[in-house]
């Protein structure tokens, strides 16, 4: 026993051991977290969880209005940010003289890194108060739109930039118009990259909590218009976990629903990314 331990472990073997241990450790912790969510959440989620309104501050009933509010907030967010983001990204990469690119890129990087609570501050002051939208799905969605806009622009830009330079060069050498090149070559080639960017934006928006507390509020009833306050999934989790004694179970249930939604989005992202990679390989 002792002898065997005394055998000096070489640098290579030592490194292999450490790397495997780290990977196993991380896997264990993350599986712990995931199994916790799945196990606890699985007990809360049943047939009616998705179709009922919450009762007794969420201790009983389900999350139907919360799902609807989440969908509406997301819809407002993407409905506003997508056209703006797409248009801006296309303009910046295809039409703008590249001189200003560094400044724009830097500003977008900064804005993409700004804490979401800061957007929450802005949304509360501007949409809820100055524009008088109050606590409403509309002001929440618009706040999120501001938040995801830089992310969208940046990732769509990356998608466009990753289109091989040769296409543009070849098209230019043939004297083709920029619009024709854009429509026939660049956008189709960049489409998977753009889709990835859009889904990243959705993923970010659907998980957001801090920016929504002071904008869309947390009324847990079925919204009847975009001017109603609506509670999104993540706020419901937060509220159940923090403020409701005995709320953990349903918090986990809601978390499970949210995680499954995100997995669906994630799968879509990696599926598209994979197709993107393959199409790129084909080009090479």
């Amino acid at each position: 026993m002792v002898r065997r331990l005394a055998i000096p472990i070489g640098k290579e073997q030592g490194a292999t051991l450490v790397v495997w241990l780290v990977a196993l450790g991380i896997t264990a912790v993350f599986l712990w977290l995931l199994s916790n969510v799945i196990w606890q959440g699985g007990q809360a989620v049943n047939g009616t969880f998705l179709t009922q309104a919450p009762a007794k501050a969420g201790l009983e009933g389900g999350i139907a209005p919360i799902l609807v509010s989440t969908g509406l907030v997301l819809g407002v967010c993407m409905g506003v940010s997508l056209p703006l983001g797409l248009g801006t990204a296309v303009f910046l990469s295809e039409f703008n003289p590249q001189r200003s690119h560094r400044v724009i890129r830097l500003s977008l990087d900064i804005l993409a890194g700004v804490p979401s609570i800061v957007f929450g501050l802005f949304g509360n002051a501007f949409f809820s108060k100055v524009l008088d939208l109050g606590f409403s799905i509309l002001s929440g969605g618009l706040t999120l739109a501001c938040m995801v806009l830089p992310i969208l622009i940046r990732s769509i830009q990356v998608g466009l930039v990753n289109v091989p330079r040769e296409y543009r060069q070849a098209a230019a050498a043939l004297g083709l118009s920029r619009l024709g090149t854009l429509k026939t070559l660049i956008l189709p080639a960049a489409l998977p990259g753009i889709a990835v960017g859009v889904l990243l934006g959705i993923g970010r928006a659907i998980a957001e909590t801090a920016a929504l507390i002071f904008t869309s509020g947390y009324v847990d009833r079925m919204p009847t218009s975009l001017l109603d306050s609506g509670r999104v999934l993540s706020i419901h989790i937060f509220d159940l976990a923090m403020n409701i004694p005995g709320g953990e179970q349903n918090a986990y249930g809601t978390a499970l629903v949210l995680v499954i939604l995100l997995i669906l989005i994630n799968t879509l992202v990696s599926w598209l990314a994979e197709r993107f990679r393959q199409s790129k390989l084909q080009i090479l």
Partner: protein
Amino acid sequence: MTSPTLSPPSLTADHHQPPSVRVEQLSLRYGRKVAFANVDAQFRAGQITALIGPSGCGKTSFLSCLNRLHELTPKAQLFGQVYLNDCDTATIPLTPLRRQVGMLFQKPNPFPLSIYRNLAFPLKEHGICDRTHIHHIIETTLTDVGLWTEVKDRLKAPALSLSGGQQQRLCLARALALKPQVLLMDEPCSALDPLSSEVIEDLIVRLKGTYTILVVTHNLGQASRIADDVAFFWVQHDVGQLIEFGSAQEIFTHPQDPLTAAYVSGRRG
């Protein structure tokens, strides 16, 4: 790997005498970096000129000024004039200029579309919309580059599924379809295996007379086989310079400049 059958060139029919290309005091800089400076030269109409010189001496940059492709690089600044016959290219709108001056790149770069659309798309963009007319042009040019028999049954297949040599010939056909008068080629064979390059080389020779052709090549053997004239570039003080310009005969056998002599004698291939 199979040697394609070549049909006789059919393009001569609708071509007049191509223009000569003349540059005066041409210089190009990328920001601070001067790619090449003060180049004066006249490239003879209907002849093949080979541009040779070590890596980084500005051959690619020089070519790109002739169809104003350098304008794609934001920080590139051009000085001096380029004339087609006696027409200053700066005064020609981009679209007709680039239609007149075709270009072939080092790496075959077909669009990620079908073989057919690779040729049809630029034609449509240039206002040729009649389907039978397009089809006719496609068949003629593909025949010219010896690709028609190889691809006529799979025109809808993606262009990227062709082999390297076939892709390069497709790119040549794409340029020829627009009926240019000048052809710029930047190391058109360097990415290809010896058999494919032979095919392209033969094609270039066959295009002589119909087009004014400028070819950049690293391969001195190739230059000596195909070129009428040779332009030799070299980097001096970090700036590309045209050191010597003359007939291929002259440059390869009696170079005037000692640099040229050293470079072409380094040729052993």
